């Protein structure tokens, strides 16, 4: 088994054992529940505001999972071992990001379907919302790797991660919310996919550079 596969497999089982997507999903549904409570149940209003708010809720739910992503590896000494692998740290970081996407990102994208319907989104848009969120959470995971790696040594770094990462969430949020709102769906979807690919390519490189410094 390659180091990439071994890391991916281990992260999947650790994340699963740690509750998997349960907490972020609960967070996501809790946040979307508050939307009609805050805005009132009027259908027309919800149909406009609901889908973008689903994107924001998904972004925040992803964000909440980042704090311990590398901090645990730094604190228990796992990072030292990762640096002795024949696989580059970039690949191991990518494996962790991929596991995060599988365990948290994809379930969030699927959970967006009932949430969108509850928020009165047009039913014909729901597949596009789910697909765009599947890509969007990949972008969030890639960007999140960098934030998590930069703050791995900071105690209670959750708020700091948010401050660092949120401005970089702007592009996927813009394109993703456009898909969810039914505006220029085709090109917006392509642009979300671009964000996801870019984040998946650059995120692990920057995160690995930061982790090497953390191990010093």
């Amino acid at each position: 088994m390659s180091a990439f596969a071994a890391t991916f497999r281990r992260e999947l089982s650790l994340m699963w054992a740690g509750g998997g997507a349960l907490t972020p999903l609960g967070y996501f549904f809790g946040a979307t529940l508050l939307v009609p409570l805050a805005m009132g149940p009027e259908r027309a209003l919800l149909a406009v505001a609901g889908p973008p708010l689903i994107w924001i809720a998904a972004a925040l739910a992803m964000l909440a999972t980042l704090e311990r992503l590398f901090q645990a590896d730094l604190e228990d000494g796992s990072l030292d071992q990762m640096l002795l692998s024949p696989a580059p740290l970039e690949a191991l970081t990518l494996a962790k990001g991929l596991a995060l996407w599988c365990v948290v990102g994809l379930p969030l994208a699927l959970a967006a379907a009932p949430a969108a319907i509850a928020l009165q989104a047009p039913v014909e848009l729901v597949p596009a919302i789910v697909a765009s969120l599947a890509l969007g959470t990949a972008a969030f995971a890639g960007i999140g790797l960098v934030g998590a790696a930069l703050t791995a040594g900071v105690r209670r770094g959750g708020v700091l991660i948010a401050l660092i990462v949120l401005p970089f969430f702007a592009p996927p949020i813009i394109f993703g919310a456009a898909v969810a709102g039914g505006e220029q769906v085709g090109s917006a979807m392509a642009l979300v996919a671009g964000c996801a690919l870019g984040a998946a390519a650059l995120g692990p490189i920057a995160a690995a550079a930061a982790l090497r410094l953390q191990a010093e």
Partner: protein
Amino acid sequence: MFSYLANPARFMAFSAWAGPIFMAAAAVLFAVGIPWALIYSPADYQQGETVRIMYVHVPAAWWSLGIYAFMGGASLVGLVWRHSLADVAARCAAPIGATFAGVCLISGSLWGAPTWGTWWEWDGRLTSMLVLFIIYLGYLALWSAIEDEERAARLAAILCLVGLINLPIVKFSVDWWSTLHQPASLFRAGGSAIDPSMLGPLLTMAGAFFFLFAGLLMFSMRTAIFRRRVESARLRASQA
């Protein structure tokens, strides 16, 4: 010039006279630029006197971006050649850049009130600047959250470079977003629409902002270097 100044002793010698000279240049340019911009330049035929906010707003916007690019360069030097003076430069430039971005946002808001009839409009340029401002805050927060200064410098440098790669993407996405929502687009400054009679004071003010940045940077870097020297002297005294 970078490699010449990379030697801290040479930098201290250089900045000792360069700092005051930059500040003096800024003072002279402000002394010329402010009256020129506020009194002697023509009012806009559409916006009237309020267009004069541009002479603060646009230079602040230019240089907050310019300072970020400078920090990106310094971060790269700091990461690749492990040069501590580059780290200090990036660290000291950040609060100045953040302040310029803040000035740009506030002046944009003040400009918006009479022209758009609202204190804030989600205009593409203002929105990009708001994102830049938050990136600055994140950079400063990361730096102050990490105790070990050398590690803080390297990690902040990575963040700065990630931001540098991201800024064009953010800019593109916000532009795309603003055409989607078709807001009241007002800022045409910087384009070909600007009248030559406004260009003189605008460039003068831009020069003044630049020298203000350069002067503040020199003083702030000197302070940081002195502080580090005092700390290591104390440490040596405690070990002896």
